[in-house]
């Protein structure tokens, strides 16, 4: 049983959803980034989704684009990312860690070498933002060899053929998009695409995690009540880093409060 399966096993009977924060590694600096990750885990995060900074993150909105730039300014590179991941895993042995990357970073590192490295660090899943399931064979091949779960994104208007493929190949969880567009903060109500949830549940037991635009507790409650296994929240947390990166004390306090409230919203049964 992998870490995701163990996690869902502990949450699902209590009808609780999982809270997975998304962060860019090295934002705003390596040290603060590591502190923020510890803080999130101590204050409710059930899993982690961590992004390797990329120069051209075309699936991301302004907030995450800026996080990439801050990370670069702090001197991050792929080897330092791996070192950070190694330290995080050493400290937090049971938490599922998913990586988010863009295809070129993995291609350039060597697809085989990248998955091998992630396997050595004990990474649980890899999601590649600009890799549709149709182009994924050479990446999935090594994910399977090195026991890393591939994660694919299911768009809100996906047709049956693609839903079937995503359900077949996405083994850690299925990343369900709240809406079209890029990452960002939405304050409006996010309607979970129930028709899609039902279709996915008919063909797979893999948990469905929703992401994109999620920024408040009302949205989270509604999402979890619709039968989705959890949520990924990135921009709302990263916006705090952007606003308070020069005042660590306030930053830590704000992130702690936010994390506690987001986690609380995923609990249907307290």
């Amino acid at each position, binding site marked *: 049983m992998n870490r995701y399966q163990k996690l869902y096993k502990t949450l699902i009977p209590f009808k609780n959803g999982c809270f997975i924060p998304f962060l860019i590694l090295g934002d705003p600096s390596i040290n603060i980034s590591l502190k923020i990750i510890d803080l999130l885990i101590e204050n409710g995060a059930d899993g982690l989704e961590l992004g390797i900074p990329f120069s051209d993150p075309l699936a991301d909105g302004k907030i995450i684009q800026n996080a990439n730039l801050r990370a670069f300014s702090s001197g991050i*590179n792929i080897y330092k990312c791996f070192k950070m991941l190694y330290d995080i895993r050493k400290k937090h042995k049971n938490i599922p860690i998913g990586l988010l990357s*863009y*295809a*070129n970073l993995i291609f350039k590192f060597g697809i085989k070498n990248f998955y091998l490295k992630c396997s050595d660090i004990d990474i649980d899943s890899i999601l590649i*933002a600009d890799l549709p399931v*149709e182009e994924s064979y050479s990446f999935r091949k090594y994910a399977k060899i090195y026991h890393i779960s591939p994660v694919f994104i299911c768009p809100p208007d996906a047709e049956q053929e693609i839903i079937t493929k995503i359900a077949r190949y996405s083994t850690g969880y299925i990343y369900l998009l709240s809406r*079209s567009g890029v990452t960002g903060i939405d304050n409006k109500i996010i309607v979970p695409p129930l028709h899609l949830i039902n279709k996915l549940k008919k063909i797979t037991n893999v948990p469905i995690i929703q992401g994109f635009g999620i920024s408040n507790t009302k949205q989270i409650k509604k999402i979890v009540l619709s039968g989705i296994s959890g949520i990924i929240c990135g921009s709302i947390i990263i916006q705090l880093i952007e606003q308070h990166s020069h005042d660590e004390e306030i930053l830590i306090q704000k992130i702690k409060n936010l994390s506690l409230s987001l986690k609380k919203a995923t609990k249907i049964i307290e």
Partner: protein
Amino acid sequence: MTLLNSYFGKFGGMYVPQILMPALYQLEKTFVFSLKDHQFKKELSDLLKNYAGRPTPLTLCQNLTKGTNTRIYLKREDLLHGGAHKTNQVLGQALLAKQMKKKEIIAETGAGQHGVASALSCALLGLKCRVYMGIKDIKRQQQNVFRMKLMGAKVIPVTTGSGTLKDACNEALRDWSKNYINAHYMLGTAAGPHPYPTIVKEFQSIIGKETKKQILTKEHCLPNAIIACIGGGSNAIGIFSSFITDNSVKLIGVEPAGKGIHTKKHGAPLTHGDTGIFFGMKTKIMQTEEGQIKESWSISAGLDFPAVGPEHAWLDSIKRATYVSVTDHEAIHAFQCLSKSEGIIPALECSHALAYALKLMKSDPNKHQVLIVNISGRGDKDIKTVKNFLKNSE
């Protein structure tokens, strides 16, 4: 499953967020259907002839080659309506957008030529147009910004990254991933995810078809070489397309060496980059050892792009085409030469191609050779840039 092959050898593909795949499939299906549709072909052909002004002439340089045995012909895409070859393919894509019942057009532009072409085709066919343009390019191409606005397009400044074409392309894709239901992304070059490289090549292949017919009429033989500049590679693939199977014809693509390859301020991914995945395709790109995309450089905004269309990467890999690079300085010199000797002011983009033709001519003045240079656009837009360059060189 795609209807057409999405790869050129190992290059190409569709490396985009999953959400864009249905829009790409829809585009491919519409394209394949339209190519078989008599009405579509008739409408496009009529627009190319009566609106855009095709065929464009093939002009023999009367003075530039004096004292040599080289005959240089210019394929005059600068005389096309809009001032560049870009008009050919935007008319095709605008008709495809209409077929798909999309009412909005998203475009990106570097030098502004594709933006202008997008704006004019939208004005003509009643489509709403927004054009992403890097802030650096907006400053250096103000005349084209004004032209786009005059024709009703909204120009959206892009401040991220280097503020050039690369960043405008990213923003256009971001916009499309939100608005693909009602909007068509009118990609400006033979690059990006499938089916764009194939669509743009098809609509630009008219340049090659006309050139072949014209050179056979004028010279009764095929040329020794065809020379075209390469940014994304649309004018080059357009003129190369009719000659790819004619092995006696050398196909030469000219990339911008910018301030010099050794300065690292260049835009030459084919000759000095390596294989990677960027802007929806697997191709040759300029990247760091870790796979971060490098910023490119060229005095010509239209060539300032760190990647190249996948078919060029393939033609390079099988050695069917040769790719070389030319510096800003050499391009400006060619720009001046053509202006002075023939009374034709070429765009800075194709001044790179011309500079290489001049090199071929000067390296062996006695050699009997027929060279065709694709003059992909006119140079009015670049006059300020050239003036500043010359002033700073004094």
